[in-house]
C-alpha cells in the first residue's frame, strides 16, 4: 500500500471540509440546506477530476486505472438521509477475478475510507459498509483483479457534515461496550455463498467532533484493521479509517463449503484489540 489510510491525503480538502458552509446534518436537527449549498456542490467537473487524480496518485502512484461498468458498481443514496451513516453497497459480479476493493470518498477530509482484501474464504460478489460523508462528493470504488489490474467506477453523493456531526452522547458513553461484536448470517441457498453481517461496537471518533467542555476535538479513535478468518482460511482483511460510521457494520459473504469457526480480530489506532469467534450455520442440503 502506497498511502496510509490514516493519513489525510489532501490537506486542501481538510481545510475545505472545515470551513465549508454546510447545512445541519446531524440526526434530529431541524435544518436542511434551504438556500445554502455546500461549497462542494458548485465545484465543476474539472475540479473534481483534478482532485481525484491527486488522490489516485497518492494511493496508487503511477499505476494505470481503467474505468469499468462491469467489474464494480457503487450503490449509494443520491442524497444521504443521515450524513453520518450512509449505506454503501459494492457489487462485483465477476467475483472470481477480484482480489480486493478500495473505497475512496473524494471530498472527505481523509478520503481513503477503506480497503478490503479478499481471501480464499470469501465470496467477493458484494460488500456493504456504512460511511460518513462530509460534503457533496464523488465516491470511487477501485477494484484490483487477481492479475494486478485496477478498475474504477464512481458515484456522486449529496451529503454534508457526516464527519464532524457530534455523537448523540458523551464520549464516555460512546465508548461503552467498545469491542463488542455480533455476527448474523442470512439464510442461504444450499451450496450458495453465506451472507454474513459483522457488527462492531466502536465510536470510530473522526477527530472532527468537538468536545465543548475541553474545547478540544475528541481525538480520532477508529477501527483501522479488521481481519476475518474461517478455519485456516482468510476471508477478508479490511483497513479502515475515520470515514467508517460509528459502530461499524460490514456485510460480506463466505464461500460455501467453508469449515471451522469464524474468527474476527479488530484493532483500532489507539492499540485497542478485540477478538471474537462465531459459528456459521452449516449447509442443510
Amino acid at each position, binding site marked *: 500500500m502506497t498511502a496510509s489510510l490514516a493519513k489525510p491525503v489532501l490537506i486542501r480538502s481538510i481545510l475545505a471540509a472545515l470551513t465549508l458552509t454546510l447545512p445541519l446534518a446531524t440526526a434530529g436537527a431541524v435544518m436542511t440546506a*434551504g*438556500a445554502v449549498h455546500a461549497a462542494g456542490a458548485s465545484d465543476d467537473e474539472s475540479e473534481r477530476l483534478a482532485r481525484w487524480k491527486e488522490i489516485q496518485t497518492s494511493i496508487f502512484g503511477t499505476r494505470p486505472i481503467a474505468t469499468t461498468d462491469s467489474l464494480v458498481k457503487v450503490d449509494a443514496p443520491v442524497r444521504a*438521509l*443521515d450524513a453520518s451513516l450512509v449505506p454503501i453497497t459494492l457489487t462485483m459480479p465477476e467475483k472470481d477475478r477480484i482480489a480486493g476493493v478500495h473505497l475512496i470518498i473524494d471530498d472527505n477530509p481523509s478520503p481513503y475510507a477503506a480497503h478490503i482484501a479478499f481471501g480464499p474464504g470469501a465470496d467477493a460478489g458484494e460488500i456493504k459498509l456504512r460511511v460518513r460523508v462530509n460534503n457533496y462528493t464523488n465516491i470511487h470504488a477501485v477494484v484490483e483483479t487477481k492479475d494486478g489490474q485496477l478498475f474504477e467506477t464512481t458515484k456522486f453523493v449529496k451529503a454534508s457534515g457526516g464527519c464532524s456531526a*457530534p455523537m448523540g452522547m458523551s464520549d464516555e458513553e460512546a465508548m461503552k461496550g467498545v469491542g463488542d461484536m455480533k455476527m448474523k448470517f442470512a439464510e442461504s441457498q444450499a451450496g450458495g455463498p453465506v451472507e454474513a453481517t459483522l457488527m462492531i461496537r466502536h465510536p470510530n471518533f473522526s477527530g472532527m467532533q468537538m468536545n*465543548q467542555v475541553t474545547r478540544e476535538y475528541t481525538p480520532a479513535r477508529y477501527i483501522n484493521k479488521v481481519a476475518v478468518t474461517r478455519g485456516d482460511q482468510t476471508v477478508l482483511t479490511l483497513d479502515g479509517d475515520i470515514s467508517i460510521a460509528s459502530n461499524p457494520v460490514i456485510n460480506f459473504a463466505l464461500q460455501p463449503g467453508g469449515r471451522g469457526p469464524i474468527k474476527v480480530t479488530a484493532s483500532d489506532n489507539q492499540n485497542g484489540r478485540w477478538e471474537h469467534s462465531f459459528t456459521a450455520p452449516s449447509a442443510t442440503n
Partner: protein
Amino acid sequence: MRADAARAGTRWSGATRRGALFGGLCLCCLPTLGRSAEGFDLAEVGPGIFIRRGPDAEATAENNDAIANIGFIVGDRSVLVTESGGSLADGAWLRAEIARRTDKPVSHVVLTHVHPDHCFGAAAFAEDKPVYVGHSALRPALDARGEYYRARLAEILGPEKAGRVVYPTLEVGTEAEVDLGGRILRFTAHGAAHTTCDLSMRDSASGILFPADLLFVTRIPSLDGSLNGWLMEAEKLKAMGAAKAVPGHGPTLVDLVPALDDLTRYLTTLRDETRTAIAADTPIEKAVQTVGRAERDRWALFDTYHGRNVTQAFKELEWE
C-alpha cells in the same frame, strides 16, 4: 383604544392586561395584538398562557428558524418563557411580544432540550437575567453539539441572527418546581426519548401539560434519543392525567390522549417494522424505503425525516 395602545407598543400592567382579557375583548378579534411584523400569531391557550404556533417547515433564512411552538406564561409576580425560540432573532421577537403584553419581569426561560429550534433564542433574554431551566443532561448535550448547531445556524441565518449557546442555570435531575405567583410550574426530567435531555412542564393553574418535543402533532416526530425510551416516556406523560397539552410542534393546544396515541402509533410502527426488517436480514438501505410507509400521509415533512428516523431506529434496535 386598547388595540391602538398595543400597536403603539405601550407596556401594559398586569391589571390592564387582565382587563383586556376578561373585559369582553378576545384576541381573535384584535389581530394586531397577537401579530408581529413577521406575521406570527400568539394564541392564548389558557389564562395567561400565550403560544406561537411554529410552522411545519425547515429552518431557512426567511423564517429565522422560528419553527417550534414557543411562548410564555404570566404569573402574579413574573413571566416564564416556555421555549426560547429557534434563533436570537426568534427569541428577540418573543421578548418584544412579551413586552407588548406585560411589564412583569421574565424570571424563567425553559430550555426544553438541545435542539436548536428550541434553545437558540435563549440569549435574547439575557438582559432579564432569568433562571434558565433545563434537564440535567442538557449541559453535556450542549457541550457535545451546541457549537456545531450554532455554526450551522449561523450559515443559514447569518451569525448576528443565529444566537449562541446558553446553559441551564437550574438543572433538573428528576423534578423541580417554579412559583410565578398564583401558579406553579412543575418540571419533570425524562429519560432518553426524543433526545437525551427532554424536560416537560405542567402548569398548576390551568392543568395544561407542556411536553415540548416529547409530543409532535402534525409534524413528523424526529428521533434523536431512544425509540424504546420514547415509548416509555409517552406512557408516563399519559399517566400524568392532563386533558390538554401544548405540543412542541403542531397546533398550540391539543387534547393530550389522542395526540399521544398518534405519536405512539407512529413510534410503535417504526419500532415493530424496523425489528421485523432486522430479523429478516433486510439491509438498512432497504429498510429506510419500506418501514412505516403507512404513516406517510399522516405527517408533514414525512419524506424529510422518516428515513432518518428509520436509520436511528435501525441503529438502536439492531443491537437488541
